[in-house]
């Protein structure tokens, strides 16, 4: 099938007067990894809850592998919540036994590879695990069912840098085999590395949804210094390619959304003393997007 494996269409979730998720539409294709970024309270976890059927949407549609959620959906869907849910009195091995009985595609060899990767002892009871080890155990379970759809809420919380890298490699491996991955993170660098697309939420709304490399190609800062005062800029501020103009003495800074070369050419025509284009990384693009400044 060629359609997206994860699909949200106009998803809205209201709690009383509060709109936690506001008209969010997002697709994650097979083989794709989408990183979901947003400040705390932006609606990321609520989006996940709706996606998994834990919360009933107020409006909008959800489809996993092209169909509404059914119990069968969960045979190929893995979810790791921010606080890993394990049975405290069961060992990791007990959890694997449960998974073996519950999931058709459970792969015991894979599960034990992952335990070794994360240096986990299967005889340990869940209640004895540190926060990072709990996350690692939950990830081991998630990836052991050979999922086609992965939904991971802060999948590296509490993990050391080496294990964090393993998590990224697991996502990459799954995507290379055709799975769809949607994960949230506060670490922009992880999204920048492992994801091909990014979604940024703010106050329940989806404010950015793009292929990361395309975003980086378009979003630049053009900085020009003039010999004297900045000349008349004409209608530059209303050019749809310009996000924002900042002026400071003889310095002009233009933040562009796309075609930064076109905007640089417009500014160059005003004869600045110097002009340069500054590349923005995802963190800077993210900060620009969520900061309060609007035109």
């Amino acid at each position, binding site marked *: 099938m060629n359609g997206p494996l994860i699909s949200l269409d106009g998803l809205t979730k209201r709690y009383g007067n509060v709109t936690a998720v506001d008209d969010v539409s997002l697709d994650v294709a097979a083989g794709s990894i989408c990183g979901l970024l947003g400040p705390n309270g932006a609606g990321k976890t609520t989006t996940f809850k709706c996606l998994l059927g834990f919360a009933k949407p107020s409006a909008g549609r959800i489809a996993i592998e092209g169909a509404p959620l059914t119990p069968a959906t969960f045979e190929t869907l893995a979810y790791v919540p921010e606080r890993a849910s394990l049975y405290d009195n069961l060992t990791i091995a007990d959890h694997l036994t449960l998974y073996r009985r519950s999931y058709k595609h459970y792969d015991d060899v894979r599960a034990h590879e992952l335990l070794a990767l994360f240096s986990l002892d299967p005889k340990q009871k869940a209640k004895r695990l540190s926060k990072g080890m709990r996350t690692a155990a939950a990830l081991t379970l998630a990836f052991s069912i050979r999922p086609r759809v992965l939904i991971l809420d802060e999948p590296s919380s509490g993990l050391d840098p080496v294990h964090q890298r393993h998590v990224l490699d697991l996502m*990459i*491996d799954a995507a290379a*085999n055709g799975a769809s991955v949607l994960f949230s993170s506060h670490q922009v*660098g992880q999204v920048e590395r492992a994801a*091909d697309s990014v979604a940024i939420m703010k106050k329940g709304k989806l404010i950015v949804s793009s292929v990361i*490399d395309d975003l980086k190609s378009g979003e630049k800062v053009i900085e020009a210094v003039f010999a004297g005062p900045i000349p008349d800029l004409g209608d530059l501020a209303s050019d749809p390619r310009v996000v924002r103009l900042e002026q400071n003495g003889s310095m002009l800074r233009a933040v562009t959304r796309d075609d930064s070369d076109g905007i640089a050419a417009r500014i160059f025509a005003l004869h600045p003393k110097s002009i340069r284009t500054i590349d923005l*990384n995802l963190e800077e693009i993210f900060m620009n997007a969520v900061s309060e400044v609007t035109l």
Partner: protein
Amino acid sequence: MPAIYTVDPRSGVPLYLQLIEQIKRAIALGMLAPGEQLPTVKALALELTLNPNTVARVYRELERDGVIDTSPGRGSFVRTDGAGVEARRAVADVARAAFEVAVREAKSLGLSREETHELMARTIARWYETELE
């Protein structure tokens, strides 16, 4: 074999462009020979911890540029005809861009044409001298 590509995900330069440049550089320097097979998309994605779609985009663009040939089922290979020429051209483009930035910077810092010339001549003397030894 040590990884011959270094990409920086935290840079503002799109990752696929960084990797394209690195592969062309490797071909121009002879680290990748004509006819040599490139790793699969999955293998390279895992080696560099990069998104597989990003790596796939790199291979598509290299194929379009006439640098590699990809045949389904067999894999991707450095072209035996013209890949070197194209890679050399691409590397010259990178050098030209770096040069342009340097000269523009000198100008915007207020150096005169003569001063910039002088600086360039001295830099060239230093680096090309060393290479002769």
